[in-house]
């Protein structure tokens, strides 16, 4: 265990991403050809059987999602790749797109065939302008070789809004509007872009698709944790020796990730906490480090797998200060559509600043807890629902850090 296993990054460093022939020499675009020789239903069944689940955070079964859009009756359907990657501490989708853009295009085209869509969009975060050229080069080369057939892919740039990673906000943004989440249902597979059936999947999810068809659903389903099989790419930041990325099977534990692959805590210091899944993730104490990184195992301990960001803090770090900064993030990124989040993130930020400045009371901390709980079930979208998690989990696991700052 604690070995790297490269599936989505299988071509990392092996091919020139700007040369389609190198991708083809590795077996690229064979899976698309195979997909097109299958019945749509059988193809979706194969993806379902692999038990591939979304890598964008929600962990929804990919094949099942595709089947909803396949069944939806419409002349026009869309495939969207969510390349918004806004979760602080995360850069895995960038790695995939920088090093192997065709694996993404191939996955999207397979999805297009499966659900009956002839148009795909890549919603690329505005912070990755260099990838616009990489992706457009790949699209052009695939077009020249007529590999994508009637499936057209267009890259659109976001403009710096974290909430646009939420799939319905992303769709609004693609339509040229403010990126405010929609009320759900209807869900995008039934009514998405321009109200047509739409599949939104993460970059890493799409990057798994071609390999699954090549090696078979059973092969894939047998890797890692059975309920969330395959690998996951993690990006390690903070006080860890190896501040880099790793792709590992999903039954790897947090401890292995930080102490084996990550090389442990930098500067010979002791571990204090780790936040997994990005800035909306839970802070996890030492006692829970033997949890496997798989989706459900993480949920079981009140944490999230999220985007796969792993933010490590050593014993010298001021947790309350870090959480205060995070509260500032959410206040800034709340889109303002619903009151519990618009007001809630502002109040959490205000109270965290007060506590961090040494002017808070025990009453403030219990108020933070209560407000956080209310937000977690009353906010419209995942942003507001998850925003209190860093506050709530640090109050739960690191109460002493708060007490030390109270008046």
């Amino acid at each position: 265990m604690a070995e790297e296993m490269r599936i989505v990054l299988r071509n990392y460093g092996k091919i020139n991403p700007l040369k389609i022939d190198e991708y083809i020499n590795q077996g690229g675009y064979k899976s698309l050809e195979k997909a097109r020789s299958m019945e749509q239903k059988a193809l979706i069944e194969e993806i379902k059987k692999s038990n591939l689940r979304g890598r964008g955070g929600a962990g929804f079964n990919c094949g099942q999602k595709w089947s909803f859009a396949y069944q939806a009756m419409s002349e026009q359907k869309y495939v969207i790749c969510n390349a918004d990657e806004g979760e602080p501490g995360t850069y895995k989708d960038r790695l995939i797109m920088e090093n192997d853009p065709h694996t993404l295009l191939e996955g999207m085209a397979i999805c297009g065939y499966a659900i009956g869509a002839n148009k795909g969009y890549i919603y690329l975060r505005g912070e990755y302008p260099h990838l616009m050229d990489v992706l457009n080069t790949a699209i052009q080369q695939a077009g020249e070789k007529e590999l994508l057939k009637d499936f057209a892919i267009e890259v659109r740039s976001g403009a710096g809004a974290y909430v646009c990673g939420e799939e319905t906000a992303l769709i609004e943004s693609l339509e040229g509007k403010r990126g405010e989440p929609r009320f759900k249902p209807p869900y995008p597979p039934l009514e998405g872009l321009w109200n047509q059936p739409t599949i939104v999947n993460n970059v890493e999810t799409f990057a798994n698709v071609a390999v699954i068809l090549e090696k078979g659903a059973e092969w894939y389903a047998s890797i890692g944790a059975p309920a969330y099989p395959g690998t996951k790419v993690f990006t390690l930041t903070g006080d860890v020796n190896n501040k880099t990325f790793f792709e590992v099977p999903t039954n790897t534990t947090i401890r292995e990730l930080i102490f084996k692959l990550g090389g442990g805590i930098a500067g010979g210091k002791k571990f204090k906490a780790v936040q997994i899944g990005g800035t909306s993730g839970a802070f996890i104490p030492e006692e829970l480090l033997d949890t496997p990184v798989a989706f459900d195992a993480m949920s079981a301990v009140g944490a999230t797998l999220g985007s796969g960001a792993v933010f490590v803090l050593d014993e010298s770090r001021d947790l309350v200060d870090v959480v205060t900064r995070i509260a500032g993030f959410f206040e800034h990124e709340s889109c303002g559509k619903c009151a519990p989040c618009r007001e809630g993130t502002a109040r959490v930020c205000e109270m965290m600043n007060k506590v961090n400045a040494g002017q808070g009371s025990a009453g403030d901390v219990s108020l933070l807890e209560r407000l956080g709980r209310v937000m977690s079930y009353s906010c419209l979208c995942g942003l507001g629902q998850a925003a209190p998690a860093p506050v709530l989990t640090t109050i739960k696991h690191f109460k002493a850090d708060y007490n030390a700052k109270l008046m």
Partner: protein
Amino acid sequence: MEYQDIIANYGDTPGGIIQAFHAVQKKFSYLPEDAIVEAAKVFKIPVADAYGVATFYSMFSIKARGQNVIRICESAPCHIHGAAEVVAALERELGVPMGESTGDGLFALEFTECVGQCQATPVITINGKPYFDVTPAKIPAILAGYR
């Protein structure tokens, strides 16, 4: 090219107003009022909606700003690795506080959240180009490239 021509290039792109705004900013560094009004006309939406879009996204500015936009990541991984010192050094070097532009119109200073280069914290970007493991000592040399 004037903003009218830039926006007209995107007129046939459904939902293309955001792409049009990016293109306008590439030339002017911000979204002039006239360009927002023009975009509303081209995309056949109320001016209020075009403003709504222009003000929603953090990369767009409706205020004139310096030609080279410096953004400093303040997300948690950069925060704990000294983003605040980088901010102080930039403010000192340029003589303006965060959120402002230099008098010569050369630089604008802004905060940003994570730019996805967290393998090398702290990170700043200038016109979208990232600089890695930035320290106060590295600032003068980085800025020299834009003067």
